[in-house]
């Protein structure tokens, strides 16, 4: 018996550990929402014979069981910590899901210098050295510009090969499944505790985006001003030079979109406004969104373009949410991001206004509400109107007769507080959820100004452009 003691202990220890974990998994309360990943976790499938026989029912039970583990966020944080120990980072850069590919193809970029018209001047920023090199190579070879990239996802809307994750454009938990799209990303790069989603769009998609917006020029009365603001993302400004080739050239793509706009559609040059202030906190480090401060500068540019008054930042009430960790931790699983939270700073407008929501599941019913809706710290970006799945109607004391409709993705949300001092009425419409025919809706509400405000990823993602195209179709 004594000889068997280590074996008995081995068996006993195994039984004990398995029993304890089984008990915890089966009887402790299951996690329903992951705050760090900012998503609702899987639900138990509803039984049907069809589902069972297809094998889906049991598959979904497995997914539910591992997805909703008690204390999930704590455990995933430990897993991230362990993963962080699997090696060392060089140049202070960690890559997540970055595929090995010749991304030069994804940078049809600078060398093409898209044809521009006087109405739509190109963004004037000094080209970066890396991209210029690409340009030289391409020019020498004399190859025709490639508008379609290797990244078939950019064309089809499917996720790139090897990228298993589906990234929600919306940071709120209330987006319906059809609001979730794969976006044209090339993985995530973490540098100086900043998560950067590498951009993988294409000129072809940019053209489709421009065409989708151009349609409104034909559908709306000439008296209505139409603007488009394509918002660059953080990777464009904060990616270390020797990794820059992993991300497509957003400036070239925005230029290309602008060059494809109908002359009656006015581009808003958010790129220049942002690139001039990269030393300020214009982008969130731990989130895939920009910071409200970045939205402020972009709105200033828009106000100048639209010829409306604009309230200076000093007049706003500055609110600070400390210890904010946004989506990039959940997307990358990089513990450095979790361990280095930031301040989420937003601004409340000084003038008076009223806010009414129309939820998309019941859009006829007005819900008097507030422009700012308090959120758990990790979901701070959803402070603006509490997220995306609604139409927000704001009536202000501006009295200039200008009525603005914003068709936007979640990037556009941060613009809204800075518009309150510039327009008499504002309709905030998310392109993913709007249930009406857009031109008819705009006419009905006497809209004078329409702004399409989307981030460059959305403007290069088939699914997102599809939503804009659908807006003109009667539901």
């Amino acid at each position: 018996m004594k000889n068997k003691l280590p074996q008995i202990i081995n068996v006993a220890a195994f039984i004990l550990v398995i029993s304890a974990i089984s008990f915890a998994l089966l009887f402790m309360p299951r996690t329903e929402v992951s705050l760090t990943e900012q998503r609702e976790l899987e639900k138990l499938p509803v039984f049907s014979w069809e589902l069972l026989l297809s094998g889906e029912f049991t598959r979904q039970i497995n997914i539910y069981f591992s997805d909703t583990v008690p204390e999930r966020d704590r455990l995933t944080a430990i897993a991230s910590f362990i993963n962080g120990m699997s090696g060392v980072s060089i140049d202070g850069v960690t890559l997540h899901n970055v595929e090995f590919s010749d991304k030069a193809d994804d940078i049809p970029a600078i060398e093409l210098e898209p044809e521009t018209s006087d109405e739509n001047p190109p963004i004037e920023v000094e080209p970066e050295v890396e991209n210029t090199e690409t340009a030289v190579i391409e020019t020498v070879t004399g190859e025709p510009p490639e508008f379609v990239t290797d990244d078939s996802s950019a064309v089809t809307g499917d996720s790139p090969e090897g990228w298993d994750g589906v990234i929600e454009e919306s940071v709120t938990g209330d987006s319906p499944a059809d609001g979730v799209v794969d976006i044209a990303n090339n993985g995530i790069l973490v540098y100086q505790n900043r998560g950067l989603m590498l951009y993988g769009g294409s000129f072809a998609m940019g053209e489709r985006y421009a065409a989708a917006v151009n349609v409104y020029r034909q559908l709306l009365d000439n008296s209505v001003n139409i603007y488009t603001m394509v918002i660059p993302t953080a990777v464009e400004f904060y990616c270390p030079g020797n990794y820059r080739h992993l991300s497509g050239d957003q400036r070239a793509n925005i230029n290309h979109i602008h060059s494809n706009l109908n002359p009656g559609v006015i581009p808003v040059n958010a790129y220049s406004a942002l690139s001039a202030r990269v030393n300020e906190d214009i982008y969130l480090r731990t989130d895939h969104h920009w910071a409200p401060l970045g939205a402020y500068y972009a709105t200033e540019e828009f106000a100048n373009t639209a010829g409306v008054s604009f309230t200076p930042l000093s007049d706003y009430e500055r609110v600070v949410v400390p210890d904010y960790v946004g989506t990039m931790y959940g997307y990358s699983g990089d513990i450095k991001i979790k361990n280095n939270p930031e301040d989420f700073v937003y601004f409340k407008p000084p003038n008076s206004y009223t806010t009414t929501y129309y939820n998309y599941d019941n859009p006829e019913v007005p819900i008097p509400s507030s422009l700012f809706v308090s959120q758990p710290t990790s979901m701070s970006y959803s402070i603006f109107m509490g997220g995306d799945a609604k139409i927000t109607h704001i009536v202000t004391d501006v009295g200039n007769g200008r009525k603005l409709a914003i068709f936007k993705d979640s990037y556009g949300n941060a613009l809204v507080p800075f518009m309150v001092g510039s327009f008499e009425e504002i309709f905030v419409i998310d392109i993913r959820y709007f249930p009406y025919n857009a031109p008819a809706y705009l006419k009905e509400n006497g809209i004078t100004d329409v702004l399409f405000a989307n981030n460059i990823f959305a403007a290069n993602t088939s699914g997102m452009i599809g939503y804009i195209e659908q807006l003109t179709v009667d539901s």
Partner: protein
Amino acid sequence: MIFADLLFIFVFLPAVLLCYFAFKNTTYRNIVLVAFSMVFYAWGEPVMVFLMVGTSEVNRLLAILVEKHKGTKKGKLIAIVAISLTLATLAVFKYGGLLHLPFKPSLPIGISFYTFQIIAYMVEVYKGNTKAQKSSLKFLMYISLFPQLIAGPIVRYNLVEQQISGTRPTNVTNISYGITRFTIGLAKKVLLANQLGAAARTVLDGNVVMSVSGAWLGVFLFALQIYYDFSGYSDMAIGLGRIFGFSFPENFNYPYISQSISEFWRRWHMTLGGFFRDYVYIPLGGGRRMVFRNLLITWFLTGLWHGASWNFALWGVYFGVLIIIEKAFLLKVTEKVPALIKIPFTLFFVVFGWALFYYTDFERMWGFIKSLLALNSMPLTDIVTTNLLYDKIAVIIIALLFCMPIYRYIERAIERMRALQYIVPVVNVAIVFLCVIMLVGDTHNPFLYYRF
């Protein structure tokens, strides 16, 4: 259901262990094993479970007939019919698409393994080496036993006949060994293969035009992944089997330290190699006549067994040709070359072979091979390769170390030093905790051999 899954480890496994050890009677224990094996299989294949049960029962009955008519033409005919039926089942369900059959059923999990076990059984009954199993329950248990049902090892009937027909030893030595073996397999899969696989995919699944070192790093990561994935699964299968008193054969024996391709295949997926040797290569004539033809056919079929795609056949023929070259002259020529040279030389061809294995699309495969061979005018290295290598360096070093037989030394040390034996439970518990953490949030990581 797969082993490296929270639902399996913490719900299914405790339930089956509890029910199994609640009985002392072997028949009841067999019933428990069959019932749970059915649940295990039906969990992933709610319809195809009937195909497995049907195939099992039909072959049990045919084997009885074969035995009854042993030595007669009738017996031979029944054996041929039985084997043809089993092969036809495999052909239809696995190679339906490849053979352009009018309907394309989805591949039932584990069909490649259980049909081979049935074929081997039938041949041995025909030859009179094995007695036909009369009991439906026992034969179904042999075929459906969940530890080895879906990814091997391919267990020959005669190896477990005693444990199936008679009683199985239940003792703490077996159970303790089984637990440790299962835990090692789990660690191989969850702590190494999953991490290596994620890294390999970032290289292999994108554009196949890449730097030379990037391509080699990718295929090297895949080589490590597939070894830890598959050998981890075999470890878990052998461990689980041992807990229930079964002794399954070993399936891997440090394949990456082989000094020749022939040796590699004596160390890699040994139960499959053994099957093809005994039931294809030797019946074809083996080394006695037309040896090169026999080798090519055997390796073509071995390759094709791995998946219903021609790249697997190419992969098999690639090894067939290499083995022919070795048999023809290379083994003799290199007899006196030191192992330190022969091992990396062999490894080069094995790792290169994984590129043929990985890409089912020939165009992508060729593009990738051009990257491997520096034919794509891409730089020798690039920043992403360097970054990835450094980012996974600890995992890669650990994985490389355990490709060498250091675990054997650890095992011997544990045997010799009693104090070390008390560390085993601590390590096992730590591994379980670590694996739980790493599995949380992971949606499924299906075993690579699942598709075979």
